[in-house]
């Protein structure tokens, strides 16, 4: 069977010593940053991008992927133990997880989260392996018009599921698209918006934007808030294993969470965050045993469901990136950037032109997930120690790595100055409540969108209706419109606001 052959190829690649080491390194680093609040996978991957110049493409991507799903694990550990979600996707885990920890059942909660995530990760890997090839086939039928419409759908999808005002989010996408226009026009060779600065004719590096807006902007915003006092609840976690009853309660939740996460992860923009919210809602709605612990007071299903869902979602969000070259979220956007750095044009051809990379990455996801379980359960005590590193020592470290990274991008201090500028802009966004993630997506997709739009118009001799008359393209655009209509409907809008208010609380 082809699937088996492909996976065998992948595991062959993943089980080489170098790749195992990078998968381990990525998973470890990911867990680390997941545990540390205020340091997310986006900032970390952005920081590490300059260093992957020295690596081969396959280990580099394996490591970055490891960081991504490692962060999902690490975030849940702190959410359960000290009620501080390290990642936005583990916000709901904190509700019942922390309640369990306070009742002395932290071990059971952590094990449920870890094993649930592992199961979800395994399923997610198989889902990718099974669905990536047919989707890739479909992708080859895409012309410029379809690609343009798909990107519109992707960008709209990314914002309707995000928090905050819809108009602002769409405006942020447009701003990102416009920033992507600062470059040399590919078709006519005219430098645009460069103000005669030679560095700007190559365009702004997206690492520069990511570090400025996410790295510096966030540090400034954090320092502007009064110092928060974190209270570590428990020094040692006793009783690692859940009881039989816990297993019985948790496994249906794991199954439901995995299914939900696998589906929602593929949707552009949703990924892990939406999956965990949806899974928690689903668990609350579905019936448990009669004498179960109420939700919010330490129900194990409230941990197992969302944790499985966010991991499955994190996994399947690789699908649009790997098959179409279209990133569904900011982390994937950075992965696309990493591929471009390594000279690989992301898109449907990756599977045929770089099969080792493609299947190796997929297989390494499973390997990485297995490592994470082994890594996390015994090492929980150490992760807690890390939390005692105060922010006043942590942020100069983040700054140091950002600065060195920025300088080494082009061995030029121009990128450092640009990042300073984007730091100001990032803080402005924070103050005006403008979510910066859509900007990064727009920025990445900007040049691609323009090229496809102009090619589509050339082919149709300037006829804009080509986007609506080609069936695939029309379907994709209809999907985008539908999404906007659905979220602006009053009832759903209210639900959406509620969901994101829970997050902030």
């Amino acid at each position, binding site marked *: 069977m082809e699937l088996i052959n492909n996976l065998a190829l992948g595991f062959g690649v993943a089980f080489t010593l170098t790749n195992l080491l990078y998968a381990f390194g990525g998973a470890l680093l990911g867990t680390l940053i997941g545990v540390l609040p205020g340091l997310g996978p986006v900032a970390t991957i952005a920081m590490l991008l300059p260093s992957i110049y020295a690596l081969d493409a396959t280990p580099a991507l394996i490591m970055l992927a490891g960081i991504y799903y490692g962060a999902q694990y690490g975030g849940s550990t702190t959410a359960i133990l000290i009620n501080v979600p390290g990642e936005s996707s583990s916000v709901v885990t904190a509700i019942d997880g922390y309640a369990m920890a306070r009742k002395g059942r932290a071990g059971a909660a952590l094990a449920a989260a870890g094993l649930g995530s592992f199961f979800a990760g395994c399923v997610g890997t198989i889902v990718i392996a099974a669905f990536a090839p047919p989707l890739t086939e479909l992708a080859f039928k895409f012309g410029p018009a379809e690609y343009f419409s798909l990107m519109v759908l992707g960008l709209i999808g990314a914002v309707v599921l995000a928090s905050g*005002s819809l108009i602002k989010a769409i405006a942020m996408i447009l701003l990102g698209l416009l920033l992507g226009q600062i470059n040399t026009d590919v078709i006519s060779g005219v430098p645009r918006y460069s103000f005669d600065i030679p560095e700007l004719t190559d365009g702004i590096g997206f690492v520069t934007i990511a570090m400025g807006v996410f790295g510096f902007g966030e540090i400034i915003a954090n320092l502007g808030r009064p110092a928060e006092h974190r209270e570590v609840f428990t020094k040692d976690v006793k009783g690692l294993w859940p009881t039989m009853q816990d297993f019985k309660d948790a496994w249906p939740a794991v199954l439901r969470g995995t299914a939900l996460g696998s589906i929602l992860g593929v949707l552009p923009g949703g990924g892990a965050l939406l999956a965990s919210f949806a899974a928690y809602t689903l668990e609350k709605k579905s019936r448990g045993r009669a004498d179960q612990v109420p939700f919010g007071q330490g129900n194990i299903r409230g941990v197992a469901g969302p944790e499985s869902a966010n991991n499955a979602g994190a996994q399947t969000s690789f699908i649009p990136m790997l098959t179409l070259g279209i990133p569904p979220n900011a982390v994937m956007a950075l992965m696309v950037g990493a591929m471009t750095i390594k000279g690989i044009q992301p898109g449907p051809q990756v599977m045929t032109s770089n099969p080792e990379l493609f299947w190796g990455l997929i297989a390494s996801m499973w390997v990485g997930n297995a490592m994470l379980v082994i890594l996390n359960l015994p090492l929980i005590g150490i992760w807690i120690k890390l939390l005692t590193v105060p922010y*006043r020592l942590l942020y100069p470290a983040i700054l140091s790595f950002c600065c060195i990274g920025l300088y080494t991008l082009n061995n030029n201090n121009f990128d450092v100055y640009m990042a300073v500028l984007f730091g100001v802009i990032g803080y402005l966004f924070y103050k005006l409540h403008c979510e910066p993630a859509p900007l990064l997506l727009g920025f990445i997709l900007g040049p691609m969108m323009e090229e496809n739009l102009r090619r589509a118009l050339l082919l149709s001799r300037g006829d804009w209706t080509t986007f609506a008359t080609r069936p695939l393209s029309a379907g994709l655009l209809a999907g985008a419109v539908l999404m906007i209509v659905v979220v602006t409907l009053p009832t759903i809008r209210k639900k959406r606001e509620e969901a994101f208010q829970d997050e902030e609380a």
Partner: protein
Amino acid sequence: MKIKSERDFWAGMMFLLVGIGFAWGATTYSFGSSARPGPGYFPFGLGMLLAVLGAVELFKALTIESEGGDPIGGIAWKPLIVILFAVGLFGVALPRLGLVITLPLMVLISSWASDEFSWKATVANAVVLITMSWLIFIKGLSLIIPMWPTIFGAGT
């Protein structure tokens, strides 16, 4: 006219101005026609669209009541200036003074942005960070970064 939501007002203003700015800039490039779009075609459209959304946001900010006027709140001037100054200085100083001087300097200055600044911890942090950076970036990844002030010669 009273501003109902300060954040939305300024966000809308920002989008409006940036949109107009980009659209205006796009007019200096050849626009082409729909059949043969030029380099100014896409940015002009995007800029106009952004300006329209900015205007809508402005209109909302002036008409729809929000809780407590949604004020922007105080600006954290100290971290803003200190952090960005430290980073900017890093950019200026690195090619001239080398990493061994520049990085601790950056750490010292940026640490001052925190309310809990202490000399001892900061110096220790700087020592740890320069050692780690040397191990990771110079030894580990063999990146080419100037290490010492250029007056000492080689600059490696």
